[in-house]
């Protein structure tokens, strides 16, 4: 068994208005920054996962993201995976 570090990014779908992002965008305008066209705010979830191999780890995390971490009505997610160097095999 190997241990992996998984990072799940959960973001509102592009088609869903993000009121928090819009408020931050306006605040950046107030601070005098121009050239910022869009701000989107999401969540990061870090998991430590034990699995036989990267494929199994990824499948597990994707299932978890689908079932709980993201709401498919509003959100989309992406999974990034790397071996956990510190805790190894």
């Amino acid at each position, binding site marked *: 068994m190997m241990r992996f570090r998984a990072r799940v990014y959960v973001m*509102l779908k592009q088609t*869903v*208005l993000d*009121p*928090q992002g819009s*408020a931050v965008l306006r605040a950046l305008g107030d601070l005098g920054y121009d050239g910022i066209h869009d701000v989107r705010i999401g969540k990061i979830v870090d998991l430590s996962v034990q699995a036989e191999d990267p494929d199994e780890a990824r499948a597990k995390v994707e299932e978890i993201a689908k079932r*709980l*971490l993201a*709401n498919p*009505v*509003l959100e989309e997610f992406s999974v990034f995976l790397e071996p956990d160097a510190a805790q190894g095999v």
Partner: protein
Amino acid sequence: MKFGVVVFPGSNCDADCYNAIADIPGAQVRYVWHKDRDISDLDCVVLPGGFSYGDYLRTGAIAALSPVMESVADFAKRGGLVLGICNGFQILLEAGLLPGAMRRNSTLTFICKDVYVKVERADTPFTSLYRQGQVIKMPIAHSDGNYYADQKTLDALETTGRVVFRYCDTEGLATAEHCPNGAMNNIAGIINESGNVLGLMPHPERCSEGVLGSGEDGRMLLMSCIHHLNRGR
């Protein structure tokens, strides 16, 4: 007529619901702990408002996975009445018993005030004692009441008449300007396809006893349930 009010960790309108129901002649009510699975003695399950599991991850997301929710889903499938109020509505959405999802209010603030809603359907088990098109006043208190569904779902809700309550002005005009939280089509409450699961953001239990000073417009909703259940006996 037996009601069950589900108590999740972080529910805070459970006692209000319990009292409002107990105050209605002919109604029995008990609490249901979120870890309980046996709800076979109940005629109507109420998922109350509050902040179940601290609203962690998303409002209602963790509560939707509670043991009791499996029983509630079975109960709903068999035609039992399920009423989700505020956080209870959010839980029904997360559990997939109603379509759509809640976004943060468009104001980005917690909104706590009386609003007017129009009764779009007076032919449901929850609204039969209202008049079709009646404008009633109920309080809302939430951060995430900005109802969202994709266009297809929204069209289906509208064409099949499943929007039961809509935010409006005192005359029943439901324009965006009278929507407190940005909800699509001013949606304040929807019902499932078979007409036995209702979710709404306003709090009928907070306007069920005139002595509390918030009117009694919500009482009719609870009484409609009893009326419906009595008729079925």
